[in-house]
């Protein structure tokens, strides 16, 4: 009954999306203007229906209803409740339903709150949103129905991939999806503005909170995903340039560029065509990411669907949406004027530089990610990995980071480097000294560059606050400072990790000791332990930092039985200046135990920096929303007074 309800809600939502598209398009014509009035309510109801449909699936997973094929394939009655619930999106169909729900809710939110734009632009925007949604409804209903029944019901479920049985699963996919799909709103705004030729500051201000919001979630999603890979895969790596990681990095890079160009458009009415273009590109990258991850073209823990039909379906959606948007852009680009002009040495100039370099980095990542697939289609196998991505992206990222330090100090429209030279001299000197110091110690090129830039940026990112009363500094400025500071912090963590990590692979007997960097580590005992759906061998390690008091670490080698799989649970000991990372391996012939141990100085700064970046975004978003609210209230008051005077 619940499954049928969920399916019915989904069909109804799809029908409403079709109606929304039709009413939105007709509403733009002179004769259909009245139809336009139902577009907003339609968007709201559609969002509610997708929510109900998603909740229905969640209830089915909660009850472990084994007469539903999806539940039987991906769940198990003995699974902890958290993973039963999170298992709703730990599979292909459920995750696509999550996507559609986020999209539906985003659409209804826009319909409810956005009142700034001229009504025709809103109609075109909501019609665009409906058009994109329709494709995903079709995908879900025709090739990935999550509510399909199983007759007879299965006696027991097949369980969830143990790698996914981690608290991270509860948060990582929803976070990333909100980011991915939030960009669909920016995409629809871009379409709407192109259709009605209303590309200007009002459009930018309407789009900005959505870009900021999506970007915050994307940032958090990437940070969480990176930390998950770090502790779950058990080898201490935090970024592998894996296609699946790149799939989340590409929309982030596009959204970062968009975030900066939308600010230029809002403040200065410049970069109009470019901003619209980036709006299209950002969501296109979300779809490319989904295609890569979900089509089964890559095999990974993320690729639930290894079904060529689904892959072709997503590819078709991708081509229709991106192709359509680019065609519209091509038709209208001529009529969108460039906007206000500005000198190269100016705030806008620095932001253009940043945008161009971010886009180039995006180009490198896209190229390196897609090329092996292209080569495979031609019958050859090529691997593109860190030795390609690291130096290639550094070529673009390093100058970008330098500009990131100087740009915020420049004035809008026209400025000169001579004016800011005394401000940047301190960070510049710090950068050169740090670089020289580490280079003399024999650290490799990229880490030296990283440390030097980080040292310079830590100071440079704070400079915009200089000479201001801190209490009067507006939230968006705080946001920028915090985010840029976060970049410096993360960069320092990355450089430290690659330059100063100590690795020890050892085989120990119980009672034996090993030294890793400043740590002394005893293997105290190895014992079996049992969890709800696994058994494990657990090592108890006693670790002392620099002769200090002992801390206990307990890495495990786990065996799950539904489905049967081995995973290693690493143990981490976090200090302010780094992390000790321990993994238990197998037993060697002679009865000794394999241990993998790492001391990673300042590695945690990578993720703290990432969180700071997201926090900066949040501050900016709060600041923008608060000032929008104030403006609305003021406008309402004026309207109220006028209406009273009129009487």
């Amino acid at each position, binding site marked *: 009954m619940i499954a049928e309800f969920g399916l019915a809600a989904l069909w109804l939502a799809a029908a409403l999306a079709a109606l929304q598209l039709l009413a939105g398009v007709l509403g733009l014509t002179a004769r259909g203007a009245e139809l336009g009035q139902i577009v907003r309510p339609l968007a709201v109801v559609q969002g509610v229906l997708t929510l109900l449909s998603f909740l229905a699936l969640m209830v089915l997973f909660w009850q472990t209803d084994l007469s539903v094929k999806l539940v039987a394939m991906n769940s198990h009655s003995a699974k902890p409740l958290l993973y039963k619930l999170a298992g709703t999106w730990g599979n292909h169909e459920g995750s696509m339903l999550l996507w559609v729900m986020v999209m539906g809710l985003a659409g209804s939110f826009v319909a409810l709150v956005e009142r700034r734009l001229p009504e025709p632009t809103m109609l075109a925007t909501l019609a665009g949103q409906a058009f994109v949604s329709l494709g995903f409804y079709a995908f879900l209903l025709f090739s990935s129905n999550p509510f399909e029944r199983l007759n007879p019901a299965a006696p027991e479920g097949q369980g969830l991939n143990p790698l996914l049985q981690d608290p991270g699963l509860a948060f990582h996919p929803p976070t990333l999806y909100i980011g991915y799909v939030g960009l669909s709103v920016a995409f629809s705004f871009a379409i709407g503005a192109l259709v009605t030729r209303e590309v200007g500051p009002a459009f930018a201000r309407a789009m900005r909170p959505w870009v900021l919001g999506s970007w915050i979630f994307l940032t958090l999603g990437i940070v969480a995903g990176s930390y998950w890979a770090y502790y779950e895969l058990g*080898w201490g790596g935090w970024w592998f340039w894996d296609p699946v990681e790149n799939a989340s990095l590409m929309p982030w890079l596009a959204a970062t560029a968009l975030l900066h160009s939308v600010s230029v458009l809002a403040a200065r009415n410049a970069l109009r065509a470019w901003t619209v273009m980036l709006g299209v590109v950002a969501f296109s990258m979300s779809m490319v990411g989904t295609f890569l991850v979900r089509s089964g073209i890559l095999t990974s823990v993320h690729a639930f669907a290894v079904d060529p039909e689904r892959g072709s379906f997503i590819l078709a959606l991708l081509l229709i949406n991106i192709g359509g948007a680019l065609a519209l852009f091509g038709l209208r680009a001529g009529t969108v004027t460039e906007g206000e002009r500005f000198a190269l040495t100016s705030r806008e100039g620095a932001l253009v530089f940043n945008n161009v370099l971010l886009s180039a980095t995006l*180009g490198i990542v896209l*190229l390196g990610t897609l090329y092996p697939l292209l080569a495979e289609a031609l019958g050859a196998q*090529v691997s593109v*990995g860190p030795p*390609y991505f690291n130096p290639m992206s550094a070529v673009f990222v390093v100058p970008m980071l330098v500009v990131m330090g100087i740009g915020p100090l420049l004035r809008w429209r026209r400025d000169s480097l001579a004016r800011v030279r005394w401000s940047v001299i301190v960070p510049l000197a710090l950068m050169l000294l740090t670089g020289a110091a580490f280079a003399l110690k024999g650290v490799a090129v990229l880490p030296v560059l990283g440390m030097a830039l980080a040292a310079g940026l830590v100071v440079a990112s704070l400079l915009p606050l200089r000479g201001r009363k801190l209490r009067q500094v507006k939230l968006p400025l705080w946001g920028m400072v915090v985010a840029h500071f976060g970049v410096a912090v993360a960069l320092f963590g990355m450089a430290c990790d690659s330059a100063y990590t100590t690795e020890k692979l050892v085989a120990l007997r119980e009672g034996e000791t090993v030294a890793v960097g400043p740590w002394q580590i005893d293997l105290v005992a190895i014992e*079996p332990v049992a969890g709800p759906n696994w058994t*494990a061998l657990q090592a108890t390690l006693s670790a002392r930092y620099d002769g200090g008091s002992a801390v206990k670490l307990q890495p495990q080698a786990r065996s799950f039985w539904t489905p049967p799989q081995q995973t*290693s649970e690493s143990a981490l000991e976090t200090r302010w200046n780094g992390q000790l990372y321990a993994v238990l391996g197998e037993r060697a012939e002679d009865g000794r135990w394999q241990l993998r141990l790492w001391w990673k100085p300042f590695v945690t700064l990578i993720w703290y920096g990432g969180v700071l970046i997201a926090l900066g975004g949040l501050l900016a978003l709060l600041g923008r929303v608060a000032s929008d609210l104030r403006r609305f209230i003021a406008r309402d008051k004026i309207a109220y007074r006028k209406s009273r005077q009129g009487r």
Partner: protein
Amino acid sequence: MIRVLLLALATLLALPATAQDKLPPAPYAYRQLADPAQEAKAHALMQTLRCLQCQGQSIADSDAPIAGDMRHQVRARIEAGEEPEAIRQQLIESYGDYVSYAPVVNKLTWPLFAIPVLLLVVIALVLRRRLTARSA
């Protein structure tokens, strides 16, 4: 229940269910070289070689048996004094281009290197146009 007990027993005996049908890992799969400089060299090379069994991980980050064997090969040959690039060449000859994460320029992969250069040229041209448009 019996299965559960058996499994618990198996774990108690430290014989993971999958371990019975495979050979013990090669000596250097999970052991470092004594000379830190050699180990650093070997590690740098291992990070740029692809595990043939898992997706998207280097042999330095993988639990797969084949990755262990390859780590052993790399460490043993570094210890014997071979140069990292020679080892990479040899591995490419036996496993194909796929094994190396560092693509080389050839008639299939040249766009990988040409496109970034093209991007740089385009950026330079765009910026130059803007500069001259201003000063003119």
